[in-house]
């Protein structure tokens, strides 16, 4: 188990390094950062000045190595755009993104799991078909479009909810609904198919034959087996939610990490983009690793492998 864990951590660190190096390269490929930082209407001498000021005239590998060395020592540098420590920027923005992400995940689970169970138990019934429609619509609808629809309905036609910013908790309602609904279908479909498999299996028949009651069989025996893959899926979906927050934060003008990342890419703000990638990929890798361990805990078979 320890050898397994050690290997997993090594892979995780390697993946993180690879991702940060790739973003570093991509930022240089997408255009000259010095020109982007200087802004529109800048003259050649302004651009040159910025290039030297930020050390962008040195080889990319040297710049990456310097960034990495500082990052390892906990120094993520200064945002080239804000002239503020990147750590301070992230500290202000990460809570917003995490709040939206966690609430949206909660909503997705609260919607997906019960619907999945009901759809599996009454397979082919009205609820199953309704759930299918809900899933198809949720997967097919782009988040920004759904966001705009909600804005028209709850911001303009029946103006009861704030549509931009998060001055109080009400500002989170629409973004969470949009993101949560986006994540729910995959969870629902997985629970449904897992439950269908479980309900048809021999041990359920045996349990029923032994006289156990319906709900007990359903929750203690069937669901426990059906949710094993759900744990990994939830971790992966949470990663998608973090990336989906780029769109949702921009639409609803939330001051989160996704929006900061997007704006920073456009501004070629290298240290900020690098730090965000590091934090987000770190969260993602941490979650998937935790999911593996959790799976092993729920499902004894996984421990054997």
């Amino acid at each position, binding site marked *: 188990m320890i050898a397994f864990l050690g290997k997993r951590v090594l892979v995780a660190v390697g993946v993180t390094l690879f991702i940060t190096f790739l973003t570093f390269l991509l930022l240089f490929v*997408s*255009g*000259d950062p010095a*020109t*982007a930082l*200087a*802004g*529109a*209407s*800048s*003259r*050649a*001498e*302004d*651009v040159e*000045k910025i290039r030297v*000021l930020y050390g962008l005239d040195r080889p990319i590998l040297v710049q990456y190595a310097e960034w990495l060395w500082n990052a390892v020592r906990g120094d993520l540098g200064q945002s080239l*755009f*804000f*002239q*503020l420590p990147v750590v301070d*920027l992230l500290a*202000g923005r990460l809570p917003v993104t995490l709040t939206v992400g966690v609430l949206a995940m909660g909503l997705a689970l609260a919607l997906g799991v019960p619907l999945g169970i009901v759809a599996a138990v009454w397979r082919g019934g009205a609820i199953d078909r309704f759930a299918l429609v809900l899933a198809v619509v949720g997967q097919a609808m782009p988040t920004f479009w759904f966001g*705009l629809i909600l*804005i*028209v309905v709850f*911001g*303009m036609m029946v*103006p*009861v*909810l*704030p*549509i*931009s*910013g998060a001055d*109080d908790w*009400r500002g989170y309602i629409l973004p969470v609904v949009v993101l949560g609904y986006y994540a729910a279908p995959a969870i629902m479909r997985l629970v449904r198919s897992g439950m269908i498999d479980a309900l048809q299996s021999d041990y359920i028949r045996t349990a029923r034959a032994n006289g156990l009651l319906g709900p007990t069989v359903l929750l203690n025996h069937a669901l426990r087996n059906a949710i094993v893959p759900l744990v990994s899926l939830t971790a992966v979906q949470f990663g998608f939610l973090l990336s989906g927050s780029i769109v949702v934060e*921009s*639409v*609803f*003008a939330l*001051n989160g990490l996704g*929006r*900061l990342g997007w*704006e920073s890419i456009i501004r*070629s703000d290298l240290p900020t983009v690098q730090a965000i990638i590091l934090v987000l990929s770190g969260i993602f890798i941490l979650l998937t690793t935790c999911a593996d361990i959790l799976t092993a805990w729920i499902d004894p078979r996984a421990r054997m492998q």
Partner: protein
Amino acid sequence: MKRNRVLSLCAGMALAIAAGGAHAGKEDDTLRVAFSGEAATLDNYKIAGREGLIIARHLFDNLLYKDLETNTIVPALAKSYRFVDDLTMEFELRQGVKFHNGERFDADDVVYTLNMVVREDYGTRYRIVVDWIKSVEKINQHTVQIHMAKPYALALEMLAGPLPIYPNDYFESVGANKFGVAPIGTGPYKLTDVTPGTRWVLEAFDDHYNSSPKGRPAIGTIDIRVLPEPNIQYAELLTGKLDWIWRVPPDQAGKLERRPKISVLSAPIMRIGYIHFNVNAGTEDFPTRKKKVRQAILHAIDRQGIADAFVGGASKVVHTACNPAQFGCTQDVVKYDYDPDKARALLAEAGYPDGFETELVVVAPRPQAESVAADLAKVGIKVRLNEQQYAAAADRWRAGKSVMIFSNWGSYGIGDMALITSNFFGGGADDLVQDAQLSQWLNTGDTATDASVRKENYAKALKTIAENAYWMSMWNFNVNYATNSELNFTPHPDEFARWFKSSWK
């Protein structure tokens, strides 16, 4: 009992939801505005975007102020000024002026600020703003002299625009980075709340000095937010949660105009669109090397038609390599009217009877670029549109790798052609023609202090550019503003919103 509690909790939540969204504007004397782009710092010398600069002009004052109503430069923090000699200006400073933190304004602030931002290592974003200043000297507590590094026709314009004065004691104690987040000035508004990059709350500064050309602010609070999604801006404006938005596209402006309680204003600005031809840079044999080809392109594009369809407002065709609203920008040059037949004839004379294929680098809205391509196709020039970000396009242009570039230039909002024509034809990196005579005329125009000398040299340069068809100006830009109809707001061609001059009706 338990059920009742749940019910009342639900009712309470519903009420809380329904009660939300205080209506903006006159009632609570708060002007709520939205920008699409973020602003990094409020250190005026390091700001790149217009958003930050607008906020900065509410917080800081300059030695001089440009009154666009009368188009004159008037005293501000300086009570008066005079030229001691060609390269020395003396300013008598106003007394009794206070900064937002109570610090007194005097010669030390002026000397400290200007000497600091001139330094290479300070990181002033646009060198052109400060590179004409050699040093600033304190004569006494209320008198300073500016020693110029070179004669510069725009010296007063710069002092009235991008050269605000900072409080030396406060700046020294907090440092440049903190100052960018928590700035202190003498301006009509002070910053009371800030989320770096995305939100600023300004409050009227009661001790803003008397006889300030910016006047006494009529609106108590200005709440500025960044809303990147335009649809949100329209929705917030329509439901009364915003009072002011800008850069509204023409089609949306038309729709907003028809709604009650919304005013839409359109104002021409300094920015113009242009197509720049690669005349002789690089190694490849581009068709634009030939004057007749360039002239043909000028005749081939229906500029007014495209402007009417896609630029909107009162956009007009521009014939000079500068905005007609700018100083020195004479319109007495060769003009190329829309005439596809003439374009075809010129192409045939240039050796391209069947036209040719080439590339157009585009840093402009897609519909405009496609219209340009369609017009060129009608005379036989097939262009591939290559859309690029400004940064990448500028790089390629400066390396001489582009045939033609379709972009636009805002002249930093300043009404003087020194800030556009000289950038593209004055011998710098963007100048691919590198015509020594042309650069010399422009250089004389940029440095002479005598207005008639400037005009004369500029006119020669503009005529040469037009005759040789080095450049095709497209149209002047307009900015559409949509506001709460209870707001008095006057837009200006320099794209600086002056909320300190705004009031409620």
